[in-house]
């Protein structure tokens, strides 16, 4: 065996919550695991967040806990290492990375996650054109820095959130709901109010999907305690005003009238799309599903399995998923992989 080749029982592709959780669970059961992350850091998507819904716990603490767990395990971690292709031969998987190295494994877990929707694709909303238009990811950075200002560097009089940017939108080809944006917006709206109590906060939605434990309560708290104004309607256009604010046009569908107002900041709640890695590897293995996400055998009893032997899935490479669901899904994948290894190795 050349020194350019590594072997492991399980190769985990992706170093986010799904990859780390599954790798640690497998490793703790005495299984040899290699983990590959294309970025120089672990869990960059979670790392971009300030606080997590619905309980406002710290995102960086979660990343630190996951990283600590990983470094305390026997998992062989390869950062800055992108798996560019993979194939199965004679019951083994051969993964090729961006350095041209080959990695062998009996089973592979795809945990390649999501990319954030590029808001510039919704031209009419002016992201990348007007400074007052930001994404939910940009807002997380502002909240993290504890500094919320408008274009002129002043405390904003008004902050407006818009749901479903890049989701539920035929025009950009995504019919699906990104699932986490509704509650994220409610969380962020509360954070804005906490940081800047005199700011008026509006939240434009088509439906509010408060599916998780504590979400509906958070929505109610946002209304009652923080006076956040929920408006049912989709903002169709953003433009700059003479005084560098953002003019928005929507319908208040509950009164059936068009609405025109200006706001200091327009926050676009950008949805989740299959990451580049997810698209590439799912298609390379023939397990691509709708919208470039990876396709599992069945959403009921075999949601971690694919049609390919020894290829497993976890987390948001399958569909938009919250952090807590992702972690649970990763543990479930670890159990499936351990079972598979028992059978595969006894043959």
């Amino acid at each position, binding site marked *: 065996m050349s020194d350019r080749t590594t072997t492991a029982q399980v190769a985990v592709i992706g170093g986010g919550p799904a990859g780390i959780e599954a790798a640690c669970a497998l490793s703790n059961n005495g299984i040899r695991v290699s983990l590959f992350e294309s970025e120089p850091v672990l869990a960059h998507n979670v790392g971009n967040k300030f606080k997590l819904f619905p309980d406002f716990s710290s995102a960086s603490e979660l990343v630190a806990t996951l990283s600590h767990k990983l470094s305390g395990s026997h998992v062989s971690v390869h950062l800055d290492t992108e798996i560019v292709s993979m194939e199965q031969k004679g019951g083994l998987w051969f993964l090729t990375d961006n350095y041209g190295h080959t990695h062998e494994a009996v089973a592979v877990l795809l945990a390649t996650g999501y990319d954030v929707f590029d808001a510039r694709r919704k*031209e*009419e909303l002016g992201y*990348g*054109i007007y*400074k007052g238009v930001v994404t939910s990811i940009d807002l997380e950075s502002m909240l993290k820095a504890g500094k919320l200002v408008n274009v002129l560097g002043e405390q904003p009089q008004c902050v407006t959130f818009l749901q479903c940017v890049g989701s539920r939108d035929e025009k950009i080809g995504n019919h699906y709901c990104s699932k986490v944006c509704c509650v994220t917006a409610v969380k962020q709206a509360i954070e804005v109010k906490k940081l800047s109590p005199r700011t008026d906060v509006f939240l434009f939605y088509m439906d509010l999907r408060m599916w998780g434990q504590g979400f509906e309560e958070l929505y109610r708290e946002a209304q009652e305690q923080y006076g956040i104004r929920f408006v049912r309607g989709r903002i169709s*256009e953003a*433009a700059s*005003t*003479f005084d560098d604010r953002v*003019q928005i046009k929507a319908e208040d569908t509950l009164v059936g009238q068009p609405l025109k107002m200006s706001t200091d900041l327009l926050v676009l709640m950008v949805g989740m799309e299959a990451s580049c890695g997810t698209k590439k590897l799912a298609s390379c293995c023939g397990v691509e599903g709708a919208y470039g996400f990876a396709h599992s055998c069945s959403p009921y009893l075999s949601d971690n399995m694919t049609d390919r032997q020894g290829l497993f899935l976890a987390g948001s490479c399958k569909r938009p998923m919250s952090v807590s669901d992702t972690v649970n899904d990763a543990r479930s994948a670890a159990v499936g992989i351990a079972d598979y290894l028992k059978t595969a190795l006894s043959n």
Partner: protein
Amino acid sequence: MMKRYWNEYQKEIADDKFFYERSCIRQTFFPGSEAAFLKMLREELGKDIYDEANQHTCTGIGYHSDIVPLQTTMTVVARLFALMTEAGYENYVPSCVTSFGVFTEMVEMWKHNPELLEKTRKILYDTTGRTFEIPKNIAHPSDIIYKFRYDLKQKMKYQLVNRFTGKPLRVVEHIGCHYAKIFPKAGVGNAEFPYVLAGMIEAWGGEVIDYPERRHCCGFGFRQYLVQENRGYSIANSKKKFESMEPYEPDFIVANCPGCTMFLDKWQYTIAEMENKTYDKNGYGIPVLSYEEMAGLLLGYDPWKLGLQLHQVQAEPLLNKIGIAYDPNEKFTGVSGKILPRPEKPHNLLV
């Protein structure tokens, strides 16, 4: 500060050998524009552009007013294509934005419904004995001027610069709905931020005003303004735009659609007479130019030969700002030397 990523949206625009189709209404409202376009292409750019004597309407106004049925429009469009084919051209250039929309739409319909194309071919042949080819390229004249904007700049005598302040002129650009809202890909810069006029303004020294109602329709509609009772709704759309652009103090408006250019000009008179309101500081209104007039002025063409005296809002304050030479005494002398009658003065709008 605008990020100019709409440069990514470019369309194919033919390079030479154009078949030109004139507009029904443009020669009345902007009588020098089409002649100026032909002159620019032939004399400034050295292009071959064919001006067919037997051409006719595209039915656009009737079509969009629900008066002319689809099959009639298709056949009329086919006859125009037949004239192009017979003249030996493949690149179709309709002067009017609505014609551009109609041609693009018919070709797209034929692509998806080949039986409609066959039916149209048959009707045209049975009635006129003509056959036709679908153009290789359909471009609006504003596309062509946009494409050659730097070549034209080489020949220009003036820039879009205020000669008193040395600052760029601040220009409102307005794109007709039928240019890119029917088929966003048919427009330079796509539908939300079409770059076709903005590209000319920026290349020629001006500054584009990005005002809040920039993307709002001028209100022309078709059935809307044709019926007198509905005009209040039509004019309200233009008024909304004027109110929105007013604080930016635009030096002029430029448009690429006959309807928009006409109504953004004429409604300023109507609003001034109805409400005694103008949208410039001095009570003259904001001049509205076609893109050919804008280019023609910068190339040094005589403002009166370009037909600026037939606009409602008069262009002299703008000409003075740019420093364009003109003879006030020649304003109402026609091209043939005949003295034209002088229009009545409005009550409120200064001229």
